[in-house]
């Protein structure tokens, strides 16, 4: 078998496994798999309006996944992406609150982007510092900081930033249209957001695959004990990687506020941080498959929304398929490793 074909064959194998598993599950609950898949497909790619919703999910999911990839390259499990995204959203909201009634809304949107990335980066850096100076594993700090972030956003929504009159779970007062990320007629997604996500993918492609920094980052991830001999400080690279990771998550959070919800809501991260972990694992920690897998996952998320209405089926089917994908992928990758070991 040609080595080039291998990923394609693996991918096909994974999809077949997922198809079999999900179909069996649907049959078990007396539902037609064909119909369910049809709804998923029509619900995500059936019209431009639906597809633009898919893109709305694709943007933050891709950003979070790319961010995670930086951390993984340096050997770090940045579980804190969720919290970093929330902090980004908080930063953006704070700036946009300041820009209410201003004559230069674009300037404030730009500032919101910067603030979101900065806050996300700082939140991640906190986890990084705790790791390198405190010796606390980043999974624990990340998880802990996620809870703190959720607490913070709830406090803001029900406290200082509560809607005039009554605070509610539906979030803060929506921003006026000038402070929305610019979009086109009939688009539910901002072309700027798509452009930003694509830019991040391209930049990362260069930075991680082509640049010296990418090679050094990978070396740190592969063997942090040896890199000092090459004159590199593993601590510095780990901090840079997790900071970049947080900045991208913060960017995703900013876009959620300014491009999707136009206000701060309690579930502003929509779980994309954790979903991003699945995307990166399914991509086998490689860069190029990430945007495509993110698109697939986004389509599942959006497509499943109409399942309850049309088929009285819970929309968690998308989660089932996503989870099955990752488990099948881990299975296939594991088998490949075994195969390489034996004749």
């Amino acid at each position, binding site marked *: 078998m040609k080595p080039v074909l291998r990923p394609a064959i693996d991918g096909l194998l994974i999809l077949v496994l997922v198809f079999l598993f999900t179909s069996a599950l649907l049959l078990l609950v007396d539902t037609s798999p064909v119909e369910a898949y049809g709804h998923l497909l029509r619900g995500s790619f059936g019209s431009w309006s639906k597809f633009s919703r898919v893109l709305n999910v694709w943007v933050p999911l891709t950003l979070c996944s790319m961010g995670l990839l930086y951390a993984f390259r340096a050997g770090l499990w940045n579980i804190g992406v969720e919290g970093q995204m929330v902090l980004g959203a908080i930063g953006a909201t704070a700036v946009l609150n300041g820009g209410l009634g201003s004559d230069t809304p674009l300037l404030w949107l730009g500032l919101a982007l910067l603030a979101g990335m900065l806050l996300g980066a700082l939140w991640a850096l906190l986890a990084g510092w705790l790791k390198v100076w405190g010796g606390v594993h980043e999974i624990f700090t990340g998880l802990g900081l996620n809870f703190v972030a959720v607490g913070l956003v709830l406090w803001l929504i029900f406290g200082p930033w509560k809607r005039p009159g009554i605070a509610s779970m539906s979030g803060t007062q929506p921003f006026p249209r000038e402070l929305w990320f610019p979009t086109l007629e009939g688009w539910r997604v901002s072309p700027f957001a798509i452009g930003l996500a694509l830019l991040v993918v391209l930049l990362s492609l260069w930075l991680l695959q082509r640049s010296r920094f990418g*090679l*050094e980052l*990978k070396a740190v991830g592969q063997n942090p004990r*040896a890199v*000092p001999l090459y004159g590199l400080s593993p601590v510095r690279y780990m901090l840079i990687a997790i900071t970049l990771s947080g900045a991208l998550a913060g960017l995703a959070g900013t876009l959620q506020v300014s491009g999707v919800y136009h206000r701060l809501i309690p579930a502003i991260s929509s779980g994309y941080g954790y979903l991003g972990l699945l995307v990166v694992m399914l991509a086998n920690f490689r860069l190029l498959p990430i945007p495509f897998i993110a698109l697939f996952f986004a389509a599942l998320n959006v497509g499943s929304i109409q399942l309850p209405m049309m088929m009285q089926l819970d929309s968690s089917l998308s989660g089932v398929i996503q989870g099955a994908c990752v488990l099948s992928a881990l299975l296939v990758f594991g088998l490949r490793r075994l195969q390489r*070991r034996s*004749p």
Partner: protein
Amino acid sequence: MQIELRQISKRFGRFEALKGIDLTVASGTIHGIVGENGAGKSTLMKILTGYLGRSAGHILLDGREVACDSPASAAREGIGMLYQEPQDFPPLTVLDNFIVGRDGPGDANRARQRRRLRELADRVHFHLDPDAPLQQLTVGERQQLEFLRLLGREARVLILDEPTTGISDRQKGLLFEALRRIRDDGRTILLVSHKLEDVEALCDRVTVLRQGRVSGEESAPFHLPRLLQLMFEAPEGTAPPAAVPTRSRRHRPGEPILRFDRVSAPGERTGLHHCSLTIHRGEVVGLAGLSGSGQGLFLRLAAALIDAREGEVRFHGRRLGSDDHRAFRRSGGSFLPADRLEEGLIPGFTIQDHFALADGIPARRARQRARQAIERFDIRGRPDTPAEALSGGNQQRLLLSLIPEQADLILLENPSRGLDVASAEWVWGHLRGQYAQRGAIVFSSAELDEILAIADRVLVFHEGRVVRDLSGDAIDYHQVAAAMTGH
């Protein structure tokens, strides 16, 4: 049990480590496997014990084809391996280590196992206290225990990898006697070694590997020049390894390069205490001592990889701060750790990647540099061979090739660990030729002979202190050996 290997091949990516090995080992014999570093000995043994899968070929035991595709299946077939480093559990006692991993009926019966351990030990004249914690044992005694464990498991094929490294002469004698005894019981023994004297003393037959192929087989009594020829005879067109320049003994030290001033640091087994000394240009300094007596700490302090608790280290007159290995490298220092794959190389990175990383150059130039280094340092691999697929000797050559040419302080920890004689000679020829005039070389070694042959100044470490500093004609085997053990 008779072992038959047929056309065993192993590829790592595009690198072919074994190219169709045919080997038959008769039942009840001691069979030697020799060859220089990178010849494929370790790979072949890892395949036989199921730790590595083979790319092609068959394994037959007593004429019956077996899979041997995992360590467990090889163990079920009665194949056991004695590793160079003991694979045991230091916090447990001798008896616990003997029992651990046995899950047959009655295997947990301590009284019975204690009896069994005693019987086995008596049969081969080993003396081990079943209740002693393993930490108190020497490497040689731990090896004896592993040997007994394998016997207790009814291993019918025993593979020994460099079993005489790091054990005393007395223990070596005991081991050899035990090996002959169990051979006479009908077990088959494979001995992998660099040391031809061990092979001569023990083996009935020897297979020589060279560059992944069988280059010849000989039966006892062995003709040494013939074995050496089979091991090392270079294929036509390659240059012979550079000769080792002999030690001058008349060393006239130049200006100071490295200065330790009352340096103390915790670590290793003993720490380092109040170390004051100066290393000069033109010196080749050997650090002698039992392993873990402070030599490793000394080297890492000098390389600014760790911090001194007290005192100061100056390199070219400049005080090195904490974690300042980068500055150390920039000022002309280089450090090569003993644990090459753990501390020196990046697993998953190719030879080419290592040059890109070390020199900060783009891929195309790194590829060119890698090609040059492979040729100049005779590394058995290609620019895209991953570091972990190289043999120990070739990993060392790769590390050496990464040292900048203008370096003037080379620190080496056990530089010839795991290397055969020819490789070690090549390494020293290269180091002396390249750096001894321009700078200083400081190395530690587990082999006293190597230190005495190479160094023109010897620092003897004992319990974290430098107890002797000998130069030139004052270097004396007995004095060094005595100082190492605290006399």
